[in-house]
């Protein structure tokens, strides 16, 4: 009511003002409405559904009925009392932590190598070749790892050619970690490379001139200066691996369970919306806690 009366006052004042001024004022006002349609879309079709899902997670589940309107904590209680779902969460956290650590270990040398290339064309080609797989889609990239790790896949063929016996790699947790690491590595490389690009090479030269070896320079100079990128890349990889779907489903096989496929099954196959919603919020909460904890751990390690 207050807002409505003040806006009518403002328009009254505009009518009283000179013609050009009121037109200019209206145009400036209209300019600030330009993001409105996009904001409306995101609010209506993402934020409102998320709010609705939060509400659903406190609803009582009765088969055949979408919503009962009850308010209960039973879905969260079910999660914390059922060992199966805790193991699923445990697997998800474990796979995510190992994957993120592997991504970091592999991305550090690769992004440092790319950031210190003197050849501009080679550098931009390598960057493109890192970004391209990222945008090929998880379905296609996971297909690639099935070809690599299958019983008659590339890796087993090499094993056999070298005289070892073929072994089952696909449908093991190890395979999931390998596949996920490869899927998420580009995010870490791009993040680290852009930060390392900004590190002044003279600082490294100074360290080398003062007698530090290349490895010491990397560990004591480059890594501490790349810390913002390391934190950002770690957070990104943790979020994406906690929520991974295609890799656990295809490479992990039907007996391997992670959170994202479990949520999908609950919401669609089981049609248990309240429990599926609760699982989604447990996953988001644990992901946030994990990202904050890992940022703190990395910050402490770098301060030492």
């Amino acid at each position: 009511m207050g807002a409505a009366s003040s806006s009518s006052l403002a328009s009254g004042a505009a009518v009283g003002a000179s013609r050009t001024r009121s037109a200019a004022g209206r145009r400036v006002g209209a300019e600030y409405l330009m993001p409105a349609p996009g904001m409306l879309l995101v609010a209506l079709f993402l934020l409102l559904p998320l709010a609705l899902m939060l509400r659903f997670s406190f609803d009582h589940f009765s088969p055949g009925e979408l919503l009962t309107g009850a308010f209960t904590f039973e879905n969260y209680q079910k999660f914390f009392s059922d060992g199966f779902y805790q193991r699923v969460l445990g697997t998800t956290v474990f796979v995510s932590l190992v994957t993120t650590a592997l991504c970091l270990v592999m991305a550090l040398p690769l992004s440092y190598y790319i950031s210190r290339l003197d050849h501009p064309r080679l550098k931009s080609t390598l960057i493109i070749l890192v970004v391209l797989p990222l945008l090929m889609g998880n379905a296609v990239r996971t297909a690639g790892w099935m070809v690599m790790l299958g019983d008659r896949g590339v890796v087993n063929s090499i094993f056999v050619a070298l005289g070892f016996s073929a072994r089952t790699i696909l449908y093991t947790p190890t395979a999931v970690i390998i596949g996920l690491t490869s899927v998420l590595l580009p995010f870490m490389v791009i993040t680290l490379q852009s930060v390392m690009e900004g590190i002044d090479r003279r600082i490294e030269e100074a360290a080398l001139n003062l007698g530090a070896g290349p490895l010491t320079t990397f560990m004591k100079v480059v890594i501490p200066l790349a810390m913002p990128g390391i934190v950002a890349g770690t957070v990104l990889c943790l979020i994406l691996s906690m929520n991974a779907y295609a890799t656990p489903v295809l490479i992990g096989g039907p007996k391997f369970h992670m959170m994202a496929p479990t949520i999908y099954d609950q919401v669609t196959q089981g049609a248990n919306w309240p429990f599926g919603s609760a699982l989604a919020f447990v996953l988001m909460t644990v992901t946030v806690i994990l990202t904050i904890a890992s940022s703190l751990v990395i910050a402490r390690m770098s301060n030492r």
Partner: protein
Amino acid sequence: MSVLSDRSLRRLGRWSFSGLALAIFAFLILPLVCVIWVAFFANKIVSFPPEGYTIDWFKNALAVASFRDGFLLSLRVSALASLSALALGIPAALLIGRRQFPGRSAIMGLLMSPLVVPGIVGGAAIYMFFIEWEVATEIQMAATLPGLMIAHTVIAVPWTMRVMVASLVSLDPALEEASMNLGANRWVTLFKVVLPVARPAIVAAALLSFVISFIDLELSLFLVGPGRTTLPIAIVSYLQWTLDPTICAVATIQIVLIGSMLLIADRFVSISKAF
């Protein structure tokens, strides 16, 4: 003598470092290379090395209804989502990229928020919302083209914004002032000065949004229906049962399509800057 050995040691270190970096690089690229390779294998059961080569699997891939329909649906959804994201994102970027005002970062934060919501969580939420919507209004949204298109527009908007804002922020305000001083009004300035300068970014944003929509798997999982699946979902459901050269041919088609779009986009605006 000791200087020489020290130097050769350095060189050895540098070579082994390059080797390590390239090995990690191979870990990234090799799976995709192998998919393309297998797509041309003559033998139906994937085993290495191949017995010969053929291009028959590509014909086979297009003959499978779920792949052909999925490809066509994905093309339609992505084109519509990309255009909608431009229609919503360009006006927003014109304000955010060129003006400083209170609440600017809040608006940007809201428009970028689809990036931080995980696909599975967002997909589940939108799916339940669409079903509730259907119960309330009797208008079906889940498992329809408009429903898919709306959801894909939501995830394409942040990418459009990133590319457009980055381009408009670097636009020299003197250009606009000069145009206005020379007597052009705001609209003429917008269409004759600002948008032409931002054209490369618009092309890149359109292509990147298309790709983001085309490859989406997690969000679409909830929103497709029987006889109405996108290509990535058709690929995943096929892979749950079989891995053969046909599926590798389908994947190769997607790799070639996406790869060429990204390379074109990269000619306009460096796509690595969008991350």
